[in-house]
């Protein structure tokens, strides 16, 4: 297919795989590369890249799946909007896999089966339409995602303000990528040689956003798209840097990612939201890694509107290794629950819920059962 098949060309792939094998043999040591984004994880499994890499190059999934990193307390508060006495007066709008993430006692999917009005959408704009169609109800959009999706939600909030929609709000559980990477490496027990940086987040952030990071931690960072050739090129560029003892920012996705990113989208984002401390599943609270509403848009904050900060919440199940998996310290099959208590059909940890979660991808494409 035009613009896609070109990036899946088997002959170019074989040449890149040859280059990777050659570099890996010259490195003569084990190399761990973290693909930060869940879309990379899925593409690596789906295209069979994992099965063609040399044995001394290991890909590790990072904390870049928005569903996986949503904290239990955020899930419990979001779910509280869909159940209880106010259930009939709320419409909950959310993206894909969020409905299946378990909270402490239930999930949005289970509340749907009990009668809650939870709607999966591909566009936050739909929730404005529902707000207009249902003036007697409160429409709450569950805002998850990284820099890729949050600017779109910011645009929707602006539009809601312009339209004077009083029955629309957003639960802000967004995450920012750079602070999470810093927290990851500051953690100490993480042994990663290089980072494959996500294409779509980088379209917004720009490749320059990783420069302070690569220089401070002396790790190669290469931005890559999601097609098999993009990923193979990214891996090859990281190995080249390691061979030459370099730690720079490379761009294997220059057809989409510029040096400075999408400044308009980032300005819009910061007009509506501002960085705030945020809880990450398994990683704890990371300073300035989330987004809260700016004062001018506080009326659209579902946490304030519904007093959700006071909702009691639970904690992650003690056996669940999602935190270690997200930090790349533990591989999914090493989790004691993997494939036993925790499967994609009956997930315990969030990494097993999302189709882009590292545990779910391992289970689906490597045979977890």
């Amino acid at each position: 297919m035009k613009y896609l098949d070109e990036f899946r060309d088997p002959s170019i792939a074989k040449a890149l795989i040859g280059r990777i094998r050659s570099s890996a043999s010259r490195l003569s040591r084990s190399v761990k590369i973290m693909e930060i984004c869940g879309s990379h994880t899925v593409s690596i499994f789906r295209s069979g890249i994992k099965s063609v890499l040399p044995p001394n190059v290991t890909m590790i999934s990072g904390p870049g799946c928005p569903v996986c990193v949503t904290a239990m307390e955020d899930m419990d508060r979001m779910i509280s909007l869909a159940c209880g006495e106010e259930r009939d007066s709320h419409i909950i709008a959310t993206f894909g896999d969020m409905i299946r993430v378990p909270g402490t006692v239930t999930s949005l999917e289970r509340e749907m089966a009990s009668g809650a009005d939870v709607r999966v959408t591909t566009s936050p704009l739909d929730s404005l339409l529902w707000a207009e169609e249902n003036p007697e109800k409160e429409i709450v959009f569950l805002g998850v995602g990284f820099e890729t999706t949050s600017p779109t939600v910011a645009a929707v909030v602006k539009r809601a303000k312009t339209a004077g929609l009083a029955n629309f709000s957003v639960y802000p559980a967004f995450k920012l990528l750079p602070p999470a990477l810093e927290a990851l490496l500051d953690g100490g027990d993480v042994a990663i040689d290089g980072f494959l940086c996500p294409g779509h987040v980088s379209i917004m952030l720009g490749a320059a956003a990783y420069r302070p990071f690569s220089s401070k931690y002396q790790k190669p960072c290469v931005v890559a798209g999601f097609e098999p050739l993009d990923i193979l090129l990214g891996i090859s560029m990281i190995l080249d840097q390691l061979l030459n003892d370099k730690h720079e920012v490379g761009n294997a996705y220059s057809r989409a990612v510029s040096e400075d990113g999408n400044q308009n989208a980032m300005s819009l984002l910061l007009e509506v939201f501002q960085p705030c401390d945020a809880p990450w599943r398994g990683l704890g609270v990371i300073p300035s890694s989330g987004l809260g509403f700016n004062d001018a848009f506080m009326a659209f904050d579902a946490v304030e509107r519904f007093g959700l900060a006071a909702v009691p919440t639970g904690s992650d199940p003690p056996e669940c290794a999602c935190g270690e998996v997200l930090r790349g310290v533990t591989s999914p099959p090493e989790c004691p629950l993997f494939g036993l208590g925790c499967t994609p059909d009956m997930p315990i940890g969030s990494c097993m819920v999302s189709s882009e979660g590292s545990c779910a991808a391992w289970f689906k494409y490597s045979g977890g059962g």
Partner: protein
Amino acid sequence: MNLKTDRVLLAHGAGGKMSQALTERIFLKYFDDPALLMLNDYAVFEVPGGRIAMSTDTYTIDPIFFPGGDIGSLAVHGTVNDVAMSGAIPIAISTGFILEEGLLLEDLEIIAGSMSAAAGTAGVRIVTADTKVVPRGSADRIFINTTGIGIIPAGCVIGGQEAKPGDVILLSGTIGDHGIAVASSREGIRFSTVVSSDSASLNSMVSALVRALGDQVHVLRDPTRGGLATVLNEISVQSNVGIRINEEAIPVREGVKGACELLGYDPLYLANEGKLVAIVAPEAADNALRVIRSDPLGGEAAIIGEVVRDHPRTVVMNTPLGGHRLVDRLSGEMLPRIC
């Protein structure tokens, strides 16, 4: 699954692992007839003078009209195909309607007309019908049940348990057309290439295959809910064999590929309503391909893989990069990607 506390979820109806668990934990506990326990989409049983195949299915779809068809033609095609996958010649179907108060009579008439036309094309009679109307909110506009029967030619032994190592796997055409046609209609997503459902009756193709190949046809299956991945997994378990397929050989329309990229879907798991998987003896593979391609619905047929002794009860796919990966059953419902 906790039967005391859990409720039915939408994912229980998606055709994947949860559907299987529901069937095993509840229905098979009480419905243990040997014909049903074969777990094909049809039952085969002896009657004086030969064998007949019987199948039933209930159709609920949103939207009820979609590019390439509607719920009425779908209800006929689906049951005709389920009967035909036993190798039988479908002869008659029954139909039952559950109508929601408020459904437009004009829509009902279009659907009935569509069913009549689909039955005429397939050469089956609609011989008995039933109608119930439920209060507004108790159903989603219209649900249709169809049950079909067909006569199995003498000597024809086809079933999910008949795949043998060395057999060749054929697919009658592109996958995912129905799933994307319905999803894009439902979500209001427009693509530059309009994808139409492949909804169609396959009984002519099956008859031609059975006539030409006889007992060299081992398995026929239409990959509906759960898609190609799910039916290949089902067959690998039923026959206790491994299945190996080649990604490059599986035909997928450009429009379907593009929509899958956008939505984060995998075409292997998308529903089809006018395609079949045929598993045949290796010496019959070329002839089977020629027969399927000569049918008006099989022009894009392809050989996509083989049955192997290795990795029994598992489906593995070779990727264009020279790698391979597991193809599992669908888990839960397919949901659009977040980012």
